[in-house]
């Protein structure tokens, strides 16, 4: 109930705030009161891209758009949404570019195949290097 009230207040507050010289969104520079929720929001924000910056997450950018997105993330976390659901919502809205955690898709699967390939390659390399070692020792 308290959460709902907060949300209603926020919704009412937002347009009022927008009337004067557009101060930052309510939760752009303000943490959630619940530390567990704030930690969850922070972890998510660190993996979302600020779309107006060059290689910065929204968690460490002064750009107004990053502030707006921080506010949205915190509000949704406060409303009890799952971080991954919020990510999915943002990806739907802005595209895959917004998330620093690539999904496994038809386009990105090589990223996830690579470690497997490297592991196999490393195994083969080390095996070839050491496989004959015993024989070499015997011969020596």
């Amino acid at each position: 109930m308290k959460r709902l009230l907060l949300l209603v207040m926020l919704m009412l507050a937002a347009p009022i705030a927008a009337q004067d010289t557009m101060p930052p969104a309510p939760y752009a520079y303000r943490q959630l009161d619940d530390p567990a929720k704030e930690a969850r929001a922070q972890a998510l924000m660190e993996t979302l891209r600020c779309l107006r910056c060059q290689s910065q997450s929204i968690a460490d950018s002064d750009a107004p758009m990053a502030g707006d997105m921080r506010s949205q993330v915190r509000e949704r976390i406060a409303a009890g949404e799952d971080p991954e659901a919020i990510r999915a919502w943002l990806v739907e809205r802005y595209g895959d570019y917004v998330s620093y955690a690539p999904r496994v898709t038809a386009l990105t699967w090589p990223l996830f195949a690579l470690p497997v390939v490297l592991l196999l390659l490393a195994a083969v390399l080390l095996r070839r290097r050491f496989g004959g070692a015993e024989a070499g020792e015997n011969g020596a």
Partner: protein
Amino acid sequence: MIAEFGLAALWLAAALAALQFLAGSLGFTVRGGALGSVVRPAAMVQGVLALTAFAALIVLFCRTDLSVKLVAMNSHSAKPFIYKLAGTWGNHEGSMLLWVTVMGLAGAFVAAVERRLPEPTMLATLAGQAFVSLGFYAFLLFSSNPFERLDPVPAEGQGLNPLLQDIGLAFHPPTLYLGYVGLSIAFSFAIGALITREVGPAFARAMRPWVLGAWIFLTIGITAGSYWAYYELGWGGWWFWDPVENASLMPWLAATALLHSASVLAARNALRVWTVMLGVVAFSMSMVGTFLVRSGILTSVHAFAVDPERGTFILALLAINIGGALTLFALRAASVTEGERFAVVSREGALVFNNVMLSAILGIVLFGTLYPLLAEALGAKVSVGPPYFNPMSALFAVPMLLVMAVGPLLRWRRDSFARIRASLAIPAALTMLAAIGLAIRVQIGVLPFLGLALAIGLAVASLLPLKGCDFRRTPLPVWGMVIAHLGIAVALFGMASESAFTVEKLVAARVGETTPVGPWNVKLVGIEPVAGPNWTALEGEMHASYRGGAPATIHPQARFFWAPPQQTSESALLTRWNGQLYVVLGEETGDGRWQLRLWWKPFAPLIWLGGLLIGLGGVLALLGRVASDLRRIVARGKIAYRRQRQGR
């Protein structure tokens, strides 16, 4: 006049590089033998000329000569002197001129002092160095002329990006470039050794000081760059797997692997092919990094496609240099034997394992950095960031750290775990204790958990090679290894602790209000306007007290630069042995409060302290190697002198 003088010096340097390349390539054949004597002097004069051109550009920047386009675009008469000077390399053309200068000087130095290798190998090496240089001279002269004039002369310059107006700019790029370009020597040695089929311990010993030197500069450059970003950007982040950061990490990973495999080759005449391969890869990574940073491709693949001149040029250089070197490698690799064999459980075995792990991490970083560019070229935008790089590199870093703890205790050629089991008991027990303690006491992520537990064991294990040694008689390179490995453990502890235990507080505070953050209480005492040479600022006065102790005063600033107009935040840092307090002053809110951002970062300074220790380890190893090389030269001189006297 100075600009034309600089340009002439640059053209002359390029001409000498061409001479050096031609004479070197012909000189090591039998018929062109006489030409060979030209190569070393050409390399030395080329280095001096490149330095002259760079000095001319420095003078132009220090005088703020606005008739030169580059100065007008990137400098301003009201800038403090140190940033006028450092502004020389704070732009594309200037930094590429620094690149060729370092390359020329490194080549000159090799030409002047290196006498251990057979002369044909040296000629091939210097010819290779000249060939690579020539490409970069062409790049400067044809598409990035730093000395271009501007007509009409503007009344004032456009200024330097305020984020760069920091003492970090004076040191970070030159240090990093010394590292990047120093690796070109390893590359050229590898080319020379491949061409003349002289891949052996002598080649490794000749190459090793250069790799060590470049690696020290890379280590220090990356460490300093990370700290600079940490305090300058104002959000407390120190590494973001950003493509520009990755561009500096990749040569470091390759150079680290090269350093270790060159040691095996020098000491045991093993890993020949692998060492030559890494010699080629390390500098290739420097060039890939330069391509990424300098071509504009990072901003957008499309921006690159719209103005492709520079990017295409560097891409062509990359293709020619790396493609050529790899082709040569493919042709010759079959005729170079692997060298001495060794058992799995041996010093070499551990070094090979970690070489493979480092290469795998390099593969992850390279692919993860390039993939978004590839995807964008295919028409889709994706981002690859910390959630990908952290776990994927840890996959290979964790086994590497474990082997790193054991490796230095093993003997060369063949050893058994049974022999060293007792010495490893203490670090293993400490790691287990730390893991249990952390699992019970705190809730943290998997990676910070592994990092903290491993760091403690690794720190102790890294000191074990000194056990039972007479400290005065322990060779310097051993000290170097111990300190560098300890540095890895220290940095790892800092990284894991920063990630696990950082406390963040964002508040809007009135003057007089106190904000608690972790063990600190920070009171906002007042806000005053202050002015600098080319900025004005609002400066906060704050009293920070640790666990109720005597308060220390800190002064974070919000700065407003006017040329170009931009706002930056100068964070205030308070360092204790167990962490760092990080305070940023933000904007004023409507109701007379001030936005403050505060962090308490337990043990965060260890990240950079560890980096410095790694670099210090490199310095000690280098001193040890150079000293023993000098002793050998002196001894050889004495023997020759004695023989001469006896002969008489």
